[in-house]
């Protein structure tokens, strides 16, 4: 569109170039460069050193723990997301607006506070601290605490994708199914879920990325016990603070790969199923 006079809604070519360079430069400097740094540092002593760091038993334990945590937290939050959006979009009840707002609350709470609240309940000096010690059941500095903190942090992801989507789709299809004699479960499985599957997948994808990458909340409740309560991000921290930079960046690059795959799938879903994921992502 460089030929001919400039439209009144078009920017001056010089401005276009300037803004384009500023945008690309800013993203390059602030986003792409750190990402490149991760891989470059991981491979600074060659591929073998990086692989050795990943094959270290403590690293493998961290990978396993991260997988377990995500495997518990993500499905639970997905079920919650479906239940909450079903209740909120298919029925009218008082306090609905408040509930919808509150569901997003964990997003605006500091990750450290998200961990802190569980320490205050389950920690040694917490509400239930003494009781738990008597039962010899550890929550803080153990798997249950890590899972709980992760659940809190990733709590809204699925619900916030599904609520606008299901609100958009209305109630007619479910009402039709009910009037044809379908049971509640049949309606959910055969009418609702097929309609929201891409939105659900989208929410699960983001939920999983955060669950596997969460650092602050998990850091507070984990106790940093090597090979036992360190998730991958925590293992990265431990290695980094130990000046084992190649190891830290090698494990970090696994997480960075996860981020890249997530972004790729996310863009793909937005592009391919734009109409079938939440209205907020249509662009």
């Amino acid at each position: 569109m460089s030929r001919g006079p400039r439209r009144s809604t078009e920017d001056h070519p010089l401005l276009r170039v300037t803004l384009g360079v500023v945008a690309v430069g800013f993203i390059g400097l602030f986003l792409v460069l750190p990402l490149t740094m991760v891989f470059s540092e991981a491979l600074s002593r060659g591929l073998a050193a990086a692989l050795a760091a990943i094959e270290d038993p403590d690293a493998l334990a961290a990978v396993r723990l991260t997988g377990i945590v995500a495997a518990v937290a993500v499905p639970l939050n997905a079920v919650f997301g479906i239940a909450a959006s079903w209740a909120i979009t298919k029925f009218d009840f008082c306090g609905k607006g408040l509930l919808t707002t509150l569901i997003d609350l964990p997003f605006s709470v500091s990750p450290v506070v998200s961990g802190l609240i569980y320490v205050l309940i389950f920690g040694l000096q917490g509400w239930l601290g003494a009781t738990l010690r008597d039962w010899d059941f550890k929550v803080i500095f153990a798997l249950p605490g890590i899972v709980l903190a992760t659940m809190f942090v990733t709590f809204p992801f699925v619900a916030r994708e599904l609520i606008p989507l299901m609100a958009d789709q209305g109630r007619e299809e479910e009402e039709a199914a009910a009037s044809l004699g379908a049971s509640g479960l049949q309606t959910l499985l055969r009418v609702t879920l097929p309609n929201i599957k891409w939105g659900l997948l989208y929410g699960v994808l983001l939920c999983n990325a955060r669950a596997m990458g969460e650092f602050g909340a998990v850091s507070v409740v984990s106790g940093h016990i090597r090979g036992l309560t360190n998730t991958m991000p925590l293992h990265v921290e431990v290695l980094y603070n130990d000046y084992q930079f190649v190891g830290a960046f090698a494990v970090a690059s696994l997480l960075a790969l996860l981020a890249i795959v997530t972004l790729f799938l996310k863009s793909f879903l937005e592009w391919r199923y734009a109409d079938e994921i939440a209205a907020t992502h249509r662009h």
Partner: protein
Amino acid sequence: MSLVVESIAKRFERFPALNGVSFTAPQGAFVALLGPSGSGKTTLLRILGGLEFSDEGSVHFDDLNWLSLPARERRAGFVFQNYALFRHMTVAQNIAFGLSVRPRRNRPTRHAIAKRVEELLALVQLDGLGKRYPSQLSGGQRQRVALARALAIEPRMLLLDEPFGALDAKVRKELRGWLRALHERLGLTTIFVTHDQEEAFALADLVAIMNKGKIEQYGTPEDVRSAPKTRFVAEFLDSAAV
């Protein structure tokens, strides 16, 4: 001192939207562009307003090589079909906009602008509504604000794209009479796009019937109605009479 449009052609990618459009309108004429959807009416109007650029042809107005002027130097009062009022500005600020963006040396004083806004509000019969926001007005009122905003810049001509398109029949009729009266008073050369034959024939001095990017017939409402030149015109006029 007239508007002379010669052989205007415009393609979008491969699709020819205008195929050599020519007509002449004397100073102060009220011209209606009438035609079916997709016949190129809006495209022609946007070319006259400087919002779209023709591939071929020329336009002269008042000895000005019209197409060589950028939109903001044409001083063509353009009224959009959906009004395009600035939602974040009050009615008064909307009307004052064209005056307040002038270069400092040509810009009227604050006081003069306010006075002019009052005059224009009175002219479009919206006295006292200057402090409202567009969202607080009815469709007909918004339309008149859009007109007042276009008139504020002391335009050389008025370009109206289906100005009453979004209004109901009753309001349309009212505004129609009012617009004609305003035209008599101001004497501005006006190009008016419409779908509605009755409206075109009631309002205009000259009617251009457009089809597929061409003007099929151009003349006074009487001539066009009594002697349709082409089959298309005859059928087009007929179809609406039913």
